[in-house]
């Protein structure tokens, strides 16, 4: 199962940038197209995942790791196994955005937003592929450290269990931030029964910490 980047959702990109909904000028529309194309050409998406039986004490079999928090317990209530996953667009995109910040900051912010939309796309594709792979079992939503009451610090556990740095080249800083920045880690419950879409709304969005809409008391309307 290869990590796949199949497209960049323009509306998502516009939302990330705080688009007020006015028309796009000719110059700006061209910039969006240019940036989307560059990002798609540059990204080398990579992903790693692994399936663990879930033990009665909440640990993942073969590891010392038990995902913490009420939200996760609720998510995994009907699950007998858990997939841990990590995905990234690679250092190629990190470098692209950094260089753009020096050469053309206008393009840089668009590329940055395109990167956010692109890594979402990679994760969505991976989840769809996992759903096929694990059929007839069913998957819960994707859930990342920092969502709900799952501590951001669990990122480190995921990193060690999946050997993320060695497998896909993402590193974790002392302060718990991932590099390349356009990277995601998550867990997904695996159940014999169909799983509801539980985690709608802002608290389950990867932009939760940094969303400009939420800060203004609004929502982007995407979830």
């Amino acid at each position, binding site marked *: 199962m290869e990590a796949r980047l199949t497209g960049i959702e323009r509306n998502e990109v516009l939302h990330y940038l705080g688009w007020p909904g006015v028309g796009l000028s000719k110059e700006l529309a061209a910039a969006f197209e240019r940036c989307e194309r560059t990002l798609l050409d540059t990204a080398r998406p990579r992903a790693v995942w692994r399936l663990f039986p879930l033990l009665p004490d909440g640990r993942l079999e073969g590891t*010392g790791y038990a995902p913490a928090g009420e939200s996760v317990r609720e998510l995994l209530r009907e699950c007998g196994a858990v997939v841990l996953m990590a995905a990234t667009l690679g250092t190629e995109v990190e470098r692209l955005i950094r260089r753009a910040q020096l050469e053309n900051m206008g393009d840089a912010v*668009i590329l940055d937003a395109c990167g956010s939309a692109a890594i979402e796309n990679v994760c969505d594709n991976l989840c769809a592929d996992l759903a096929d792979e694990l059929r007839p079992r069913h998957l819960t939503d994707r859930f990342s450290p920092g969502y709900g009451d799952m501590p951001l610090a669990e990122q480190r556990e995921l990193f060690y269990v999946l050997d993320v740095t060695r497998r896909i*080249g993402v590193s974790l*800083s002392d302060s718990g931030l991932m590099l390349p920045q356009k990277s995601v880690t998550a867990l997904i419950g695996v159940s014999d029964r169909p799983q509801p879409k539980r985690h709608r709304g802002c608290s389950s969005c990867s932009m939760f910490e940094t969303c400009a809409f939420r800060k203004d008391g609004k929502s982007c309307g995407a979830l």
Partner: protein
Amino acid sequence: MGKAVEHSEILLLDGGMGTMLQAAGLPLGQTPEVWNVTEPEKVAAVHRKYVEAGSRLLYTNTFGANRYKAARCGYAPAELIEGGVRCARMAAGDLPVKVALDIGPLGQLLEPLGTLRFEEAYEAFREQVVAGAAAGADLIVIETMSDLYEVKAAVLAAKENADLPVWVTMSFEASGRTFVGTTVSAMALTLTGLGVDALGFNCSLGPKELIPLLAELRQWTDLPLILKPNAGLPDPATGAYHITPAAFARELLPALGMGVRIFGGCCGTTPDFIRELGTVLTAFAPGERKTDRRFGVCSAANTAEFDGVRVIGERINPTGKRRFQQALREDDLDYIIARGVEQQDAGAEILDVNVGLPGIDEPRMMTRVVRALQGVTDLPLMLDSSDPAAIEAGLRAVNGKAIVNSVNGEAAVLDAVLPLCKKYGAAVVGLCMDRGGIPQTWRERAAIAERIVEAALSYGIDKNDILIDCLTLTVSAQQSQAAETLRALRWVKEELGVRTVLGVSNISFGLPAREHITVSFLTQAMQAGLDFPIVNPNSEAVMDAVASFRVLSGQDRDAEGYIRRFANVPAEAEKPKASGGMTLADAVMRGLRGETAALTREALETMSEMDVIEKLLTPALDRVGERYEKQEIFLPQLINAANAACEGFELIKKQLAKRGGASVSKGKILLATVRGDIHDIGKNIVRVVLENYGYTVLDLGRDVPPQEIVDAAVREDVRLVGLSALMTTTVVSMEETIRALRLSGHPCKIMVGGAVLTPEYAAEIGADYYARDAKQSADIARQVLG
């Protein structure tokens, strides 16, 4: 130790350690090195199984025993390493089995992509090396690396703090690059230059996938080669490897034929794999290594092979350039590295870097410029200085293999600089001059060239890494010298058989329509055997001449490069003209850079610089800001407008610099993303906007410790400090920074911004101002600084 395997028999290494320890009960995700202290018998038992299977070199169980990865387990790296060496020694007993100190990646990404500094990486590796040497390791193995810069820190730490052989293996993807973009040729050139004893691949791929990469590697080095692949590719669902020991050994056979002598296994391999390897490999006669090597210089991601004409860009040099000198004095790195990017876009293949200027701390500036350049361009670098300290600073900072420019025939210079070239593995330029100056005849220059080549060889520098510069003199002043230079060049090329380099542009100094002379001389020089013209790549005529020469000399096969260069040339590139009734304000508003520059130039004909700023550029930016606040435009447009205005400001700066006046600035602002935070795009946007409002911005970067911010604020007497933090987890260090600034007693205002901040939160942590966005930070700056 490297020598021991070069000629003779095969050396068998061990196989996977982590998987074996997990089989012995180590939970997945726990620090395996802890067992060196708590369960030494179990670790030694794994080693013993490998010895029984035929391993004659054991890697200690110390892959992650560095201060960053070990922090979470509660043991000091030295304890884990001492225990690790002891475990391996226990297993080796009295058998002829050697023990290698295993050093893996630190787990933190280095600058420029990450935040770990080269010196910090060096320090962490030094700690490991010292502990390993003290514990009695026989050699040092640096393995599973993806970042060549991290490898360089580790190799220097190993060679400077222990007297043991050093081996390096890196992990590649099937694409032929590592996760951070290092190429096989760059790895080989750099590490061969740094003087490691053996090199190769481990992890990430199985034997089948590694063979094509091996075929590439062996062309770029004559060092012994190491292969330690995974047991194929893992099953994603379970993490298990499926290849059998027999298939593993069989798939490695081609490597034997390609001259590899050092074999082992990585993830998923067991003692059975090693035993099988021993049986299969010893049944065949090892193949011979090819001797025709390829040479070149490189960054981590890009190699300029020495196989024809390569253009060296000359524009990073303050000589005779007022604007560049001003940038050096004002520490304006962005201006300097923009000259690098521009030359790469124009077709330069190597960048000359000269930052020497009276009053500048050249070694420090060399380090900073080299690192900054490496963040934005992947061109190999030529370090241009007459100060050995600056050369060494640059050589240490370079990620890849560089060229040193230069030495000359003077013994003192040769003895000071050649050892540096040897130690850091750089190619070197020798100028055909000495204490007596530049000789007037080609014979005398040739004699100096001969002396330089001899000296370089005596220091162990490969002949292929010696570049001779026969020196260009200005034809308008010394007309006969052009022919002498060409004659010397031809002789050096044909008789000494080394490569040649020449600063070309100087030929036409003082003449009108210089380009004709420059291009004509360049063509003759290439015909005489010039490999590396140092030129201005922004001159199309120069680059056209190079493109043509490459076709005529056969370097550009089937004229592919030439056709690419000229196939899609538009009839006449459109020059932005200040026409159509567009005002400067319109141009700024629409983010049109070319038009803004043209209209600024027009305005400067009738107005003073300050008037253009005060009456045209600033009001235009203000209007953009208002529209942004009213949400009539959004962020990309605000930034594009600021960037367009920048073109106008830059023109004015240039004009002022030419008159020798000071630059215009409304005041100094310090910006930093606080410690622990690596998300700095927001801070960078603020910088662009503030600069375009005419402020001088001192950007300390990201992940900046509080003390560094305090020191800079005091040293530069900054009245406004802007701090950025994106995550709730890093607002804590923002608060700490504010406290430190207040404690220092330095009178300054502090503004803060970042996604999770609010005006209330900002007040709570002691900030004077909360800036919602870049526009507001400019408003605050105006309030504080005027």
